[in-house]
């Protein structure tokens, strides 16, 4: 299964998120009326789809000891661009290309600043957050972009074989990221860039190319996600996705990928996304007061990372 020349990885424990997701899913199915109904599960899938798409490349970014805080603002910008192209009369494919193009450009900017200029990713992406946010606001003058026609919304409403198209695209993104990470040289370098970057350079690997590619991939995926966002809202809005990157980062870290040392489990992230989606949905269905929903999420985050870190320590002591 490993690509030739791949780094051998020692077998690791299942991340805590997996049993926690299972417990929460079972608890929700038993205790929350309506949770297991078809429409509700479809809702959960759709709501989680965008977060899943953002979290896949974010896993790679975090594995490379980086961070991308600009993802949410970039998503809004790509959505706005996509909407504007649709308003201008072009078809959905062209709009999607435009959106992916913008995503790619900003992703490359992030990558170049981080890899070539060696600026800290937190700072770089905070700056590009401002730039993307600013661009979106300036282009729309703060207003939503409406009148985009039915194409985006009808695409979003498609459900081949009963599965929402957004979920299918998200799962496809997972598949693509999996292949990239575990079966290509690019993927190998992602493991190494986090924590052993200098070794790679000294070994003559084209680190810059791969490092930039990580952020460029993030930008591309954001561009595609904008299609789902615009379809869902039937409009483009300059500030709609602010803060989504924090959810994606939380999902990645809940899934067991640590900030240092390039340890990453892609399927862990998927479980992280699932947990967040299930908890939010269950709390909504139970009619829990919004303020306590917020507290619950915070408690959940702390509990999961506590379990993870105490298991890691037990592993070390053993």
């Amino acid at each position, binding site marked *: 299964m490993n690509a030739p020349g791949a780094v051998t990885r020692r077998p690791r424990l299942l991340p805590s998120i997996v049993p926690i997701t299972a417990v929460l899913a079972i608890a929700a199915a038993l205790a929350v009326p309506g949770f297991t109904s078809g429409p509700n599960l479809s809702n959960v899938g759709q709501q989680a789809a965008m977060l899943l798409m953002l979290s896949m490349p974010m896993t790679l970014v975090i594995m490379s000891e980086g961070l991308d805080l600009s993802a949410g603002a970039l998503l809004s910008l790509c959505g706005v661009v996509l909407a504007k192209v649709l308003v201008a009369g072009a078809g959905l494919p062209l709009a999607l290309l435009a959106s992916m193009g913008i995503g790619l450009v900003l992703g490359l900017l992030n990558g170049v600043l981080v890899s070539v200029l060696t600026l800290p990713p937190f700072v770089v992406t905070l700056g590009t957050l401002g730039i993307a946010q600013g661009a979106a606001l300036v282009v729309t003058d703060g207003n939503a972009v409406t009148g985009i026609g039915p194409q985006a919304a009808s695409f979003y409403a498609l459900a081949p074989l009963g599965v929402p198209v957004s979920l299918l695209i998200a799962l496809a993104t997972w598949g693509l990221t999996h292949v990239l990470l575990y079966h290509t040289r690019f993927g190998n370098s992602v493991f190494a860039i986090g924590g052993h970057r200098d070794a790679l350079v000294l070994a003559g690997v084209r680190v810059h190319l791969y490092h930039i590619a990580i952020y460029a991939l993030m930008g591309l995926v954001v561009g595609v996600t904008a299609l789902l966002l615009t379809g869902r*809202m039937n409009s483009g809005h300059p500030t709609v996705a602010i803060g989504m990157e924090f959810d994606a980062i939380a999902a990645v870290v809940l899934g067991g990928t640590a900030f240092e040392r390039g340890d990453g489990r892609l399927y862990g992230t998927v479980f992280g996304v699932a947990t967040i989606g299930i908890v939010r949905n269950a709390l909504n*269905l139970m009619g829990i007061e919004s303020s*306590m929903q917020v507290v619950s999420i915070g408690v959940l985050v702390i509990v999961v990372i506590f379990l993870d870190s105490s298991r890691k320590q037990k592993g070390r002591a053993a």
Partner: protein
Amino acid sequence: MRTWNTLRLAGIVAAVVAPVLIGAQPAHAANERLAAFYKNQVDPHFGLVRGGVEAVVKQMGAGAVTHYAPTRPNNLAEQLSQIEDVSVKRPDAILFMAVDPRGVVPAIEKVNAAGIPVLNYNDRVAGGKYTTYVGADDFKLGLDTGRYALRAIGGEGLVVIIEGVKGSTTSDQRVAGFNKAIEEFPKIKLLASQPGNFQRLPALQVMENLMQAHPRIDMVLAAADAMALGAVEALEAAGRKTAKVVGINGVPEAIAAIKAGRLLATGEFDGYKIGCVAATAALRGLRGQPVPATIILQGTVIDRSNLGPWDVPMDKRVCPKWEEVAR
């Protein structure tokens, strides 16, 4: 060691269960179940709306109302998720206001398709089918309040506008009303029009900076009370006694400020009334009683002379009579 582990496990379980228990709403005998949406959990205006809704639900003996507000203020993605989730729960009726008037439309259309009656209150949504609209005429509010303010300074002077959030119907309509009022007074000069985001601190800082750029300001027209009060704080801190401020809403703090002479007046956009009337309309609709398709609550300009009815704590407030508003 084992007791420590059990203790830890118990602690974790308790920590996870506690917020759920605290936040769970008590079960009611199942009569009508309402779902009420708000834009955020932060602006006291929506606190008033919620108060009005709950008062009516109690008075009219309905079953229960569940309140939905995004955890991140004005977050569209969260509201969309809440709309989707609520359509699974199938309440008997939904009271709805949108975080973004256009972005929610596809989700609302799905709720329409599911056959759940939706009532639009507070400000208009740009699409979807509603049994009734309950709100105010924001443009007229801006116009009336603006006229009052400009007359109060003798029809001439230097004026600044503090807008809300760009793109929100309330802000745009009220500011348009202000501008129309300014047109009617040729001796009034508009110095600047800056957004305050419907929040206090940004409005305060905008006012501070405007004061630097313009040594003399006679009147501040603010699109909402929160911003008006921020402007008042800034003016007072700078010792500018001659400038006057008006806002729109009529929240308790604004009433107190008018009494104390710090705020000149406020245009009435009474959240409590809106909540009352909307909940009444929804329940009447469910009980087969007649309900008009549009209810516009007339707002007066509240100043020192007539603030009595609003100078009342929430638990003592009275809902307007149905016959008066539903003409």
